[in-house]
C-alpha cells in the first residue's frame, strides 16, 4: 500500500487521527479499493469509529502493489498519533505525507516531507490483523437528525468538558434537547449540576424523530467526531433507535466519510415517557437504582459470552476469544445492509416486560444483546458471516 497526502489534507488526516484517538488505543489501517480506511474500537467495545478517505483525497493512492493481496494492519494509536500530534506543526511545515506498507518490511512507514528539505521518517511496527468491521446500518434507524457541526458544537458548549454522558432527545414542539446525564449515586449528598440545552427544529437541516424519543451516549466520544466535523465545516447526522441500540454519527464529503457508532444506555420504557416532562424542566426521574458499572467493567459481564472475537491476530498473539463463545474465523461481513439487519432482528429476543434491563452500555457489534442477563438463550445467533477470504 502506498499513498501520498499533500497540502491541507495532511492536517485533515491528522485531525481524523486525533478524533480516532478519543475512542480506541489501536488503529486499524485498511487500504481498500474505495480508499484508505482508518478504524478503531474502544476496549469495552461500546464505541467504534471509522474514517474512509477516498482515493481522490490523496495525490497518489495505491491500495496494493499489483499482484499482491491487500494488506491490512493495526498499530498502536499512540504511535500513529505521535506523527500527527502537533496539528499546528502539520499545517505550518509539512508539505507532503507519504504512508507506505509493503509485505516485506515489518514496518509501516510514514514519511513527512517538510519545509526546508527536512524529511521526518517514522517506522511504526504493526500487527497483521483481520478486518475490523462493525455491523451497523444507519438506514435501519427510525430516527435521525442532521445539522451543521457548528450548531451541535455550540449546543455542547454549556456542558462541562469532563461530563461523561449526555442524553439527546426530542421534546414537545419538536425541540431537540441535550441534557447532562449523571449516574445515580448511592451516596448522593453532593448533587451534580444538571445542564440542559434546547434547540429549535429550525436549527436542523433534517429532523426525523418522534417526540419523546431519547438516547444517552458518551459525550466524550462524540466530541471526537464533533471537533473534526466542525473544523471541516461539515454536517453531522445522527441516526438512532431505541435506548440500548447503538447510535450512528456520520459525516460525509466528496473526499471522505466518517462513522462513529456509539452504544447507548438502555432504559426502561418509563424513561421515554418522562421525556414529555423535559419541556416542563423536570429532570428525568432517576430509575430504580441499578448498578451502573463503568463501561470498562464489561470484561466480566456475562454478556461478553455473546461476543465473537472481532479479529484474530496472525502469529497467535492470543485471540481475544472469550470462553464459551462460538468463534467465527475472522469475520469480514460485506457491508450490505440487507442481511445484517435481518440477522440482528432475528437474534434479538424481546425484552421481558416488567424486567428493567440493567443500565449498561451494551456491546455494539454483536447487536442483539437486549436480552436481560440470565434469560434463556435462543439458538446462538450468527452475527457475522463466515469470511470467504479477503475481499
Amino acid at each position, binding site marked *: 500500500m502506498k499513498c501520498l497526502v499533500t497540502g491541507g489534507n495532511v492536517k485533515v488526516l491528522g485531525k481524523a487521527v486525533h478524533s480516532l484517538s478519543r475512542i480506541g488505543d489501536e488503529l486499524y489501517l485498511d487500504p481498500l479499493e474505495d480508499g484508505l480506511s482508518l478504524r478503531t474500537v474502544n476496549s469495552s467495545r461500546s464505541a467504534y469509529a471509522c474514517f474512509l478517505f477516498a482515493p481522490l483525497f490523496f495525490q497518489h493512492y495505491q491500495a496494493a502493489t499489483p499482484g499482491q493481496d491487500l494488506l491490512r494492519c493495526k498499530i498502536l494509536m499512540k504511535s500513529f498519533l505521535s506523527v500527527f500530534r502537533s496539528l499546528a506543526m502539520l499545517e505550518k511545515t509539512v508539505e507532503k505525507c507519504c504512508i507506505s506498507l509493503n509485505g516485506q518490511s515489518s514496518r509501516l512507514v510514514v514519511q513527512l516531507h517538510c519545509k526546508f528539505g527536512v524529511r521526518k521518517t517514522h517506522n511504526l511496527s504493526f500487527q497483521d490483523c483481520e478486518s475490523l468491521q462493525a455491523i451497523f446500518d444507519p438506514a435501519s434507524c427510525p430516527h435521525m437528525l442532521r445539522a451543521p457541526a457548528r450548531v451541535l458544537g455550540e*449546543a455542547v458548549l454549556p456542558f462541562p468538558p469532563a461530563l461523561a454522558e449526555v442524553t439527546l432527545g426530542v421534546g414537545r414542539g419538536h425541540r431537540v434537547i441535550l441534557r447532562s446525564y449523571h449516574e445515580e449515586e448511592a451516596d448522593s449528598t453532593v448533587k451534580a449540576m*444538571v445542564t440542559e440545552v434546547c434547540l*429549535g427544529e429550525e436549527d436542523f437541516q433534517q429532523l426525523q424523530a418522534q417526540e419523546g424519543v431519547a438516547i444517552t451516549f458518551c459525550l466524550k466520544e462524540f466530541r471526537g467526531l464533533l471537533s473534526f466535523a466542525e473544523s471541516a465545516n461539515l454536517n453531522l447526522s445522527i441516526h438512532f433507535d431505541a435506548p440500548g441500540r447503538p447510535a450512528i454519527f456520520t459525516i460525509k464529503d466528496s473526499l471522505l466519510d466518517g462513522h462513529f457508532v456509539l452504544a447507548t444506555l438502555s432504559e426502561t420504557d418509563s424513561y421515554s415517557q418522562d421525556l414529555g416532562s423535559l419541556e416542563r424542566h423536570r*429532570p428525568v426521574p432517576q430509575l430504580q437504582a441499578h448498578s451502573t458499572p463503568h463501561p470498562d467493567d464489561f470484561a466480566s459481564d456475562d454478556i461478553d459470552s455473546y461476543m465473537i472475537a472481532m479479529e484474530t491476530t496472525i502469529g497467535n498473539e492470543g485471540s481475544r476469544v472469550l470462553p464459551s463463545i462460538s468463534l467465527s474465523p475472522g469475520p469480514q461481513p460485506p457491508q450490505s445492509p440487507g442481511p445484517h439487519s435481518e440477522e440482528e432482528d432475528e437474534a434479538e429476543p424481546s425484552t421481558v416486560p416488567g424486567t428493567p434491563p440493567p443500565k449498561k452500555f451494551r456491546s455494539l457489534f454483536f447487536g442483539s444483546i437486549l436480552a436481560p442477563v440470565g434469560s434463556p438463550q435462543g439458538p446462538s445467533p450468527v452475527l457475522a458471516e463466515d469470511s470467504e477470504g479477503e475481499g
Partner: protein
Amino acid sequence: MKFRAKIVDGACLNHFTRISNMIAKLAKTCTLRISPDKLNFILCDKLANGGVSMWCELEQENFFSEFQMEGFSAENNEIYLELTSENLSRALKTAQNARALKIKLTNKHFPCLTVSVELFSMSNSSRIATHDIPIKVIPRKLWKDLQEPMVPDPDVSIYLPVLKTMKSVVEKMKNISSHLVIEANLDGELNLKIETELVCVTTHFKDLGNPPLASESTSQDRNPEHMAEVHIDIRKLLQFLAGQQVNPTKALCNIVTNKMVHFDLLHEDVSLQYFIPALS
C-alpha cells in the same frame, strides 16, 4: 420562599459573571444571601475555611431588570442558600453572548437555583441553555453565623498596590516559605516579607497613600513610620489575589497587629471584604 430575577443588559451580565468567577476562585462553597435590595456572597470563618472569611455585597438593582423575592418570613425576609461557587460561574459562562438571563429558585427533585440563558441563534428559533445548580437551604437558626463581619479598628489602613504585581511577588514567595509577614505604616509603605533559615526576602511598596483615619486618637498616638504587621498563611493571601482578575476600582488593606488583615475592595459597584487571620 421564592426568588426570580432577570438580567437583560449585556454589561450587567458580564459584570455579574466576573463577580461570580471571582467568588469561585475565593471559595469553593459559599452562601448566597438574597434580600430585597441586595445579594451577598458569604464565606464565614469556620475552621473548614481556615479562619478566612469573605463578605461580598452587590445592590440588586444595579444588575437585574426584574427582581422578586419572598424570604423565609415577613420579619425575616431573606433567603440563605449554600452552593458550589464553580457551578454558578460555569452556568454564567454560557451567558456570555446571551439575550437574557433568568435565575429562579426551583424545587425540581432537589432544591436548585435554576439559571436559564436565552442565547442568540442564527435561525429564528430560540436556543435555551438551562443549568440547575443544586443548593442547600440554610435554616434560620444558622443565619446568625452568616452576618456581616465586624471590622475592628485597624492599626494601619493603606491603599494597595496593583494587585497583579502583588500576586506575582507572592507567587514567587510561596515557593520559599509557607507563611509571610504583611506590614504597613501610615506613611504609604507596605512590605511583604518572608524569612527562612537560609534567606529573607522583602518586597517594598512605597507611596501607596493612606485613607483618612476613622479614629482621631489612633492617628495622634501613632508614629507614621511604625509598621503594623501580621503573620499570615501565604496560600490564603495568594488565593485572595488570584481571585482578582480585574484590578479593582478601590483597594484598601487594614492591618490589626498580630490579629488579622482585612482587605476591602470595590469592583465598580460591588464590594468585597476578605479577612485573613494571623497565624497563631
